[in-house]
């Protein structure tokens, strides 16, 4: 009963990995099936169950990463959503924090709010900052508002009242009323989504949650039903933005925590490989059909962000300036993303300039060369024309690449109007795609003062291995790693993660009120809350690792530092019960806080200043059961193309077209010079002329520049 399935849905491809009870890895890649994304997942799982002869009820877990929710936000295709606020504050959502994301741009357009003003309604009620009820909820008014929402056919409701992070009674009261008055309409209450102070951040996070909730829950219900039809009754676990899994029931209600689901899994997989190789510093590059994403692993640690902005052009969590998009205060892996993937469409603008993306041909109609109705040229078409991607059947025969269709698209739309030959035009598309992708790579490296020369670039995603070496050369990385199964890497990442839940309590503790008893009381409550949740999901208390952290600042500051309260990471509940906090905990916390403050900012602030704890957080993790996975035991049959030993590929004006050796990954032995093309099931790795490649003992392709 240890067969596990990881399924990653991207804009273009859906990747499924199955690890059987012997640890063997089976894979299947199919085109995504918008708008019914679950269909491709079900087709692929069905295929793998048949191929491995596994009965559905032998599957012990299905881990899933999906971009369904984030796409709904980016494309403004979410539910018809309303927002209820305290009287006087319906514009908090649209005013945001007033900031603009950059200086000196007079034409910057503030993105439209997800809930228009006419659907933001004010409730007569008010709680004070200390929990005093200044004005009770006007229930008869709430009834009128509910009637108005019904008349508007609202599909989802967010409620965010002032001070509900600590005093949620009014939100609960309204939630109860709406459940009666609007049966079937999901209601997201801000204190349940994000019980933290700061009304804009809590409102925005709750609104995004409400906005994607009907889509996400509908999607998950259909997927669950389809898996059931394959006799898979195992838990369906969804990847969260912060890199842990959560059961579908939770993701359906709090989808804002799984918004960055897909990208997170790829970074986790990269972290896993980097750990195996003992590589401390890695820039990850994940190029899929629609976007390219970069993130940083530094000294072995994945970079996390406590909040991010969804839909900002270049989302990079830790940057100074906010205001570019709705602020989601949910932890995530820190990823910079640009709209530049294999499916990105190349076109001429009005001034005759060549542009690539951000529009993507996606899975449908797809790149012209897939012959599924696409006529406009994409980056993938350019890569086919350049000889980087082979003709013929790809991905277990699901897709067939037609060189002639690719040439025709590049010729009609680019080469002919510009009066250039097809190869030059294709190379232009490839290079412009690279220049766009470079923005994401720079955002996580040079723009943060990191020198790319000190980092290894790990390229994955269907198109990552095609572009990685060229980008690394430009960026200045000396080494590139293309891991096994690069095109299914995110699906693999789903299987190295375990279930994870977060619980948080806002507080304001300083001076005498900040004592061991107070912290212990909160930790016990949060611990109990998590244990209930995990037990409900079928985990035993002794399977869990618990970690407690607090958000601390000097009294009077507005920004906090997160400090771990455990000396040992990941205690069990019994260990916690046996070792309650003592006054030494507080002393150690103070010492750790002051030294972290000094490390970060170079000073200890005034020595008389009190420390203040503003939130206590407990994270619970259940083991993934991943154990060791050997990606080289991949068991599926390997479609190795049309058997050519060389392919004509273009490497720019200086080298021109070269008869380039084509090999499989397993045939890569010793050190081989570029140019070289390494074809495999799910991707092609391009080794440029100035580089050389070898295969390490774990099966990774390692490219180095001379």
């Amino acid at each position, binding site marked *: 009963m240890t067969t596990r399935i990881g399924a990653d849905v991207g804009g273009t491809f859906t990747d499924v990995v199955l690890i059987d009870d012997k640890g063997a890895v089976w894979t299947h890649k199919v085109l995504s099936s918008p708008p019914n994304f679950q269909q491709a997942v079900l087709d692929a799982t069905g295929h793998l169950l048949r191929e491995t002869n596994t009965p559905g009820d032998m599957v012990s877990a299905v881990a899933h990463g999906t971009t369904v929710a984030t796409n709904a936000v980016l494309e403004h295709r979410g539910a018809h959503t309303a927002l209820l606020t305290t009287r006087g504050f319906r514009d908090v959502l*649209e005013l945001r924090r007033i900031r603009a994301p950059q200086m000196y741009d007079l034409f910057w357009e503030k993105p439209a709010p997800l809930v228009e003003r006419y659907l933001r309604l004010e409730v007569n009620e008010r709680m004070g900052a200390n929990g005093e009820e200044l004005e009770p909820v006007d229930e008869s008014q709430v009834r009128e508002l509910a009637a108005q929402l019904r008349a508007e056919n609202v599909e989802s409701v967010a409620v965010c009242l002032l001070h509900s992070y600590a005093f949620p009674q009014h939100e609960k009261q309204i939630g109860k009323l709406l459940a009666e008055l609007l049966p079937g309409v999901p209601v997201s209450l801000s204190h349940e989504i994000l019980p933290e*102070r700061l009304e804009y951040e809590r409102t925005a996070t709750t609104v995004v949650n409400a906005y994607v909730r009907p889509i996400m829950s509908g999607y998950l219900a259909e997927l669950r039903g389809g898996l059931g039809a394959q006799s898979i009754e195992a838990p369906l676990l969804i990847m969260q933005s912060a890199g842990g899994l959560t059961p579908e029931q939770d993701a359906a209600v709090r989808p804002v925590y799984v918004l960055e689901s897909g990208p997170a899994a790829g970074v986790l997989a990269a972290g896993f490989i980097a750990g195996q190789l003992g590589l401390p510093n890695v820039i990850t590059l994940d190029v899929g059909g629609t976007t390219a994403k970069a993130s940083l692993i530094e000294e072995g640690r994945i970079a996390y962000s406590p909040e991010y902005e969804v839909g900002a052009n270049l989302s990079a969590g830790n940057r100074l300036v906010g205001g570019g998009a709705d602020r989601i205060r949910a932890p995530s892996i820190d990823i910079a993303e640009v709209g530049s993937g294999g499916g990105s469409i190349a076109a001429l603008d009005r001034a005759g300039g060549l542009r690539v993306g951000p529009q993507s041909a996606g899975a449908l109609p797809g790149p012209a060369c897939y012959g599924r109705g696409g006529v406009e040229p994409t980056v993938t078409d350019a890569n086919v024309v350049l000889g980087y991607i082979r003709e013929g059947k790809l991905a277990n025969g699901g897709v067939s690449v037609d060189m002639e269709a690719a040439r025709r698209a590049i010729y009609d739309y680019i080469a002919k109007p510009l009066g250039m030959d097809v190869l030059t035009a294709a190379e232009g598309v490839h290079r412009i795609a690279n220049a766009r992708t470079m923005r994401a790579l720079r955002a996580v490296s040079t723009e943060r003062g990191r020198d790319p020369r000190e980092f290894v670039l790990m390229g994955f995603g269907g198109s990552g291995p095609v572009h990685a070496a060229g980008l690394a050369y430009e960026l200045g990385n000396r080494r590139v790693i293309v891991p096994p199964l690069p095109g299914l890497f995110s699906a693999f990442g789903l299987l190295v993660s375990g279930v994870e839940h977060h619980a948080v309590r806002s507080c304001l503790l300083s001076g005498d009120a900040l004592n061991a008893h107070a912290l212990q009381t909160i930790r016990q409550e949060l611990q109990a809350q998590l244990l209930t949740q995990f037990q409900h999901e079928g985990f035993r208390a002794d399977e869990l690792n618990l970690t407690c952290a607090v958000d601390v600042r000097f009294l009077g500051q*507005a920004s906090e530092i997160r400090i771990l309260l455990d000396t040992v990471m990941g205690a069990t509940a019994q260990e916690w019960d046996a070792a309650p906090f003592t006054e030494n905990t507080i002393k150690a916390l103070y010492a750790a806080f002051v030294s972290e403050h000094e490390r970060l900012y170079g*000073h200890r*602030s005034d020595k008389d200043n009190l420390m203040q704890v503003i939130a206590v957080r407990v994270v619970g993790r259940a083991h993934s059961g991943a154990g060791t996975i050997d990606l080289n035991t991949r068991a599926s049959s390997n479609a190795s193309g049309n058997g050519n030993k060389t392919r004509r590929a273009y490497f720019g004006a200086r080298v021109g077209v070269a008869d380039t050796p084509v090999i499989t990954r397993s045939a890569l032995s010793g050190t081989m010079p570029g140019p070289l093309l390494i074809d495999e099931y799910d991707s092609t790795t391009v080794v440029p002329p100035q580089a050389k490649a070898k295969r390490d003992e774990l099966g990774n392709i390692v490219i180095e520049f001379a």
Partner: protein
Amino acid sequence: MSVDLITREIVQHALAAAGDEMAVALYRTAYSTIVRDCLDYSTSLTNAEGEMIAQGVTIPFHLGAVPSAMETLFKKFGDDINPGDVFILNDPFDGGMHIPDIFIVQPIFWEDRRVAFAVSTAHHLDLGGRLPGSSACDNTEIFQDGFRMPWLKLYREGVADEAIFTLLRANVRLPHLTLGDIYAQLAACHIGERAIHDLIRRYGVETFITCANDSIAYTERLLRAEIASWKDGSSSFTDYMDNDGLGGGPVKIHVTITKKGDGLTADFTGSSPQIRGAMNSTLSFTASVVAMCVRAVAQQDIPNTAGMFKPLTIIAPPGTVVNCVMPAASSMRGVTGFRVGDTVFGALSGLLPDRVLAAGEGGNTLVIIGGQRADESRYIFYELMAGTWGARPDRDGNDGLCNPGNVAANIPIEQAETEYPVRVERYGYVPDTGGAGKYRGGLAIEREWRLLHGEAHLAIRSDRREYAPYGLFGGKSGRGTINILKHEDGDEVLPTMISTSIKAGELIYHRLAGGGGFGDPFARATELVARDCKNGKISMDAARREYGVVVNEKTFEVDEAATAHARGNPPGAS
């Protein structure tokens, strides 16, 4: 020496990133609402000669303050600048901007050689003076603005000058906040030093110096190329502040912008003489604003370095409101900066009509409430209320966005109410306040504060009640500001600029100005008018009156026939 392109680009990005890191350290360790929430501060790095090589994404208006501050620093200390020294300044007549802005400057050395300076400038909550918060429009001389520090050494070779700290503690109302923010500024400088040392360790000192200096020349080249691409010409504009802070006025700002070749001159001759109230601007501040405006209409991304100023010539006669002399008060000069910005943009619109926006809200309103809590602890609640944009040549003004002159933020209501005896009772848009136009000006914002305990001083700095934000090319002005004090006896309209007191239970209402419109309102797309009606951003009445659009009040659809009639082109008339 010459440096390869990749290294140069990395160093330049790393410097910009260091400026941002300094900025993050500053606001994350600061204590006052004006710095930690409203973000009224800036950070930068200069080369060894004090020329700016990077600025954090903070207040554009502080851009030009660094050169004149560094110039007086060198004049005063010459060679007496040593490792471990830290300098402090807030005197506007010694290179500073106004009393509330404290400069902290730390020289950065590498093996005994001076290679750079880290600079931080923060608006302080209180530096003593006549009223809580120091800033008051009706201050009439600098001595009322507060404690004045010409350039001093706060640290001498690593050792703090306790005398300065002692004097500061004795002269400000809330020493732990003022000193806490000074420590935050020191933290920012420390981060800047660490970043520069990291860069030098990695690339060597010569490479660092070459890259830093190249970035200044590069900026100048970019800006000159930008200016050269404009048509030669000259354009004048006049705008006003309603009054001088003491009820007199209006205060005139006049500029003539002349573009010739790859240079640009801004001549403020004809502007009002220096005024009695506290809105007098230093030349350095006026120059900052001009640079910000030029930078904003430039079409290229230009690094924020000293190279920005080289193509610009600023003429401002001494003794005017845009170049004040002793003993002018200047604590509230921010509003003058915003108006200088509006005036310069107005003039630039004559040269570059498709790149300039109509006037926005006219700058932040400051509301300062100072008193004692129930436990007798003192507080100063310093609120910086921003902002909304004027309409643009091809789109509406942004509703509710900080003025392009300063990257400010609002104070979260839940944070304010947790820390201060103040309750915010309303915060939102006001319909029918954006100037009508083919493109609509941004809506005004209103906010209400109720005092919950005791008595308190209240200072308000606002403007743009009579001289409302202008529209362009047929666009209408935005609606002007208003301040109302609501007490037992009813509502009392307060002047735009006032220092007074309020009691528990009383409520202050402020409405910012709306942005100006752009183009003929009757040319506005009718469905946009209907959308604004549906969203309560304009009324049905205004739709008909200002835009000639008749909207059905139930369906919010455009009544095409009635609209054609209202717009004076009934069917068949063509």
